[in-house]
């Protein structure tokens, strides 16, 4: 616990129980919705919640669901997602979402109950070392052992979760601390001296960046989730900077929506299943300006062949991301919005003539003309790409939010659903957690009750968290789950085809639930479609249904997700048309 967080003496000292301190602190932090599941070690907090209004508690069906719901909520609102779970299994069930939020830099505050302090270390009922278990997968964590430190700790947790590079913070609260009486302190003045993220860019880094821009003939913006985290202003500034520079823009999976997909200079997503034009532009550019992305292996492909001839600028709030994977020429340690604003100002102030980008655009147009996302459509069977395309066309004019599970459907969603706004797209990028999408949709719907929220799912992934449909029904959160049902763990099947001589070891689901009946059994609405001719009508039926829907969209079973950069290959070595089986060398086979 920190001792030197200086708080103003409150006009009157507020004395209350630890449980009441928790609720009071959450309210002061502006928490409107929280996701949780009760149990012995959090009953005092639940009791305090019983008498309190102002915070909506969404009772999930599994703690992992609470975690992903909080992530979805956070990703779409920019506010920290809050969960409340019990000790032991409640806490261990939260580990996956905590790790997920850490990887994708999602602000989240997780409150866990703990056995009473005098029982800690005795292997008490439902005891686990929550801070020990979550130490390496959370941004920070606390075990509160003094009720008078509780309020301050909670405020500090919010501060740390949402500032700098956001992330999950765990506060473990023993039951006796929840019962004990202590003093409440407000959030004003709470800070942690050892924690001081840099948000303002160094002016030298900005002018060096603009110096490079003055001569760039083949520039590209490589943008990522950091722009979304930075807030809508960062997206606005990116658009403005793009507008004055005319640079083409690509994005990682996590950054989709920061730049409008409808813009003529949008290249599409970069990386393993990104567009041909984005990957070739990254490979052949002479100036790469990375804004809030981290050179993930899904993006870079073969590292020693990554964008060999470019100068690289890396804007990131986390210094450890810089030079971690790829050596860059100019690190800009700052919040994305601050850095973009500074670059914009500096760029506008330079009056010298900037190079003509026309030849670069022409080159990009040639790549574009390959139309890398072309697929063979069919009258007899629904192609998954077609299904997402139709879903997009039929929902694009509404306020629509998309979440996904993990697998081929996730990549097809990224390729064929187009985002013009930030905070509309929620997916598990870094950890790649199957089961993320439905609870995340629950969280998104809780934030936007009247919007259309769709989880684009796979039939395997959805079974990891199907129970959360019941949460949606209970809380009148009309989420739609659009399952691209190919009966396969399609992404696994694709890799087995590509890498393991078509030996499809345990990637086929011999049995599957009847998703229509399942939906009905849980109080939702089920729709099945296997006929391309009926697809539009059934999608409309889904949209028009006022409650939660499971849509079992039967799609082509053996479709591969292309284009693809096989592991260990370079950006300009994409597989475009068909998988032949010899694309990946021995070295690539060892990769993930």
């Amino acid at each position, binding site marked *: *616990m*920190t*001792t*030197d967080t200086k708080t103003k003496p409150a006009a009157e000292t507020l004395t209350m129980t630890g449980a009441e301190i928790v609720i009071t602190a959450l309210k002061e932090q502006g928490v409107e919705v929280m996701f949780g599941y009760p149990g012995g070690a959090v009953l005092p907090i639940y009791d305090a919640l019983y008498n309190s209004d102002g915070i909506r508690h969404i009772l999930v069906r599994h703690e992992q669901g609470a975690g992903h719901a909080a992530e979805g909520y956070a990703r779409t609102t920019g506010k920290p997602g809050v969960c409340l779970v019990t000790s032991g299994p409640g806490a261990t069930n939260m580990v996956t979402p905590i790790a997920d939020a850490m990887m994708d830099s999602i602000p989240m505050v997780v409150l866990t109950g703990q056995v009473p302090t005098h029982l800690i270390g005795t292997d008490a009922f439902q005891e686990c070392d929550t*801070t*020990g278990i979550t*130490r*390496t997968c959370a*941004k*920070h*964590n606390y*075990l509160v052992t003094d009720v008078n430190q509780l309020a301050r700790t909670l405020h500090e947790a919010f501060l*740390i979760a949402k500032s700098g*590079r956001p992330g999950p913070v765990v506060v473990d609260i023993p039951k006796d601390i929840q019962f004990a009486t202590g003093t409440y302190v407000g959030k004003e003045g709470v800070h*942690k*001296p*050892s*924690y001081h993220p840099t948000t303002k860019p160094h002016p030298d880094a900005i002018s060096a960046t603009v110096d490079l821009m003055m001569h760039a003939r083949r520039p590209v913006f490589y943008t990522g989730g950091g722009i979304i985290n930075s807030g809508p202003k960062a997206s606005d500034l990116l658009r403005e900077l793009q507008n004055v520079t005319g640079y083409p823009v690509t994005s990682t999976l996590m950054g989709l929506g920061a730049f409008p997909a409808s813009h003529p200079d949008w290249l599409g997503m970069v990386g393993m299943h990104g567009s041909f034009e984005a990957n070739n532009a990254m490979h052949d550019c002479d100036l790469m300006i990375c804004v809030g992305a981290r*050179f993930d*292996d899904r993006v*870079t492909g*073969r*590292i*020693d062949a990554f964008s060999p001839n470019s100068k690289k600028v890396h804007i990131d709030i*986390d*210094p*450890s991301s*810089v*030079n*971690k*994977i790829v050596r860059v020429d100019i690190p800009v340690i700052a919040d994305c919005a601050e850095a973009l604003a500074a670059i914009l100002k500096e760029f506008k102030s330079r009056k010298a003539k900037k190079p003509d980008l026309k030849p670069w655009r022409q080159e990009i147009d040639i790549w574009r003309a390959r139309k890398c996302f072309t697929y063979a459509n069919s009258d007899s069977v629904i192609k998954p790409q077609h299904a997402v395309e139709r879903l997009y066309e039929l929902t694009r004019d509404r306020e629509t939010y998309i979440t996904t599970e*993990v697998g081929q459907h996730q990549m097809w969603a990224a390729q064929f659903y187009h985002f013009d706004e930030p905070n509309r797209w929620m997916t598990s990028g870094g*950890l*790649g*957690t199957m089961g993320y999408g439905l609870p995340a949709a629950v969280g998104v719907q809780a934030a936007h009750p009247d919007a259309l929220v769709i989880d684009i799912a796979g039939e395997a992934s959805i079974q990891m968290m199907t129970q959360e449909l019941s949460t949606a029904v209970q809380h009148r959160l009309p989420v739609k789950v659009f399952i691209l049902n190919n009966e396969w763990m399609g*992404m*696994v099947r694709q*890799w087995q085809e590509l890498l393991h001589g078509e030996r499809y070891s345990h990637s086929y689901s011999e049995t599957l639930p009847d998703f229509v009946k399942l939906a009905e059994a849980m109080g939702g609405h089920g729709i099945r479609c296997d006929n391309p001719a009926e697809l539009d009508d059934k999608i409309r039926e889904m949209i028009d249904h006022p409650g939660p829907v499971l849509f079992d969209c039967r799609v082509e079973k053996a479709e591969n997700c292309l284009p693809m950069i096989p*592991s*260990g290959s370079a950006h300009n070595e994409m597989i475009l048309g068909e998988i032949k089986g010899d694309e990946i*060398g*021995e*070295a*690539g086979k*060892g*990769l*993930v």
Partner: protein
Amino acid sequence: MSDGSTATPPAGNPKSAYFLSHEDEAVERRTLAVMVDNEPGVLARVVGLFSGRGYNIDSLTVAEVDVNERRSRITIVTQGTPHILEQIEAQLLRIVPVEQVIDITKSKRGIERELALIKVAGKGEARVEALRISQIFRANVIDTTNESFIFELTGASEKITQFVDLMRPLGLVEVSRTGVLSIKRGKEKG
């Protein structure tokens, strides 16, 4: 795919992010002083970072150094290529209670010292020789019986190692070492 086991570096040249082997860079030894808030679990965070990310720890010392500010100083001796060492420093600074990382080795003003307690047992000629050598090394005798000494020795780690090596044939029983402590010369802090 987002899962799978870690690959072993393949023979031949193709590289990926997983075996970012900046092979051209030589491994260096570094002493880092890590200033932290002395709160529960802080040492586990620091040590866990090294094990979790596959960095080396050659030695580690820790103690509270400012009781009022509740500040501890952790001295870590580690090894890595310059690229890895840069990452270690940046990753350490990501830990919330880590206030500052001081690179003692790079500063050129760094002083490193270690303390060791060395037990040597023997009789006759060997015993006399052990005592004689300890005087050359300016070690203190802090315990003695008819058949043994415990020497206390402070100095650079190499000096201690050298002393221990010399004691080996003279009846070395056991050694306890603190690991490296460090500070910078001059009047400034940090």
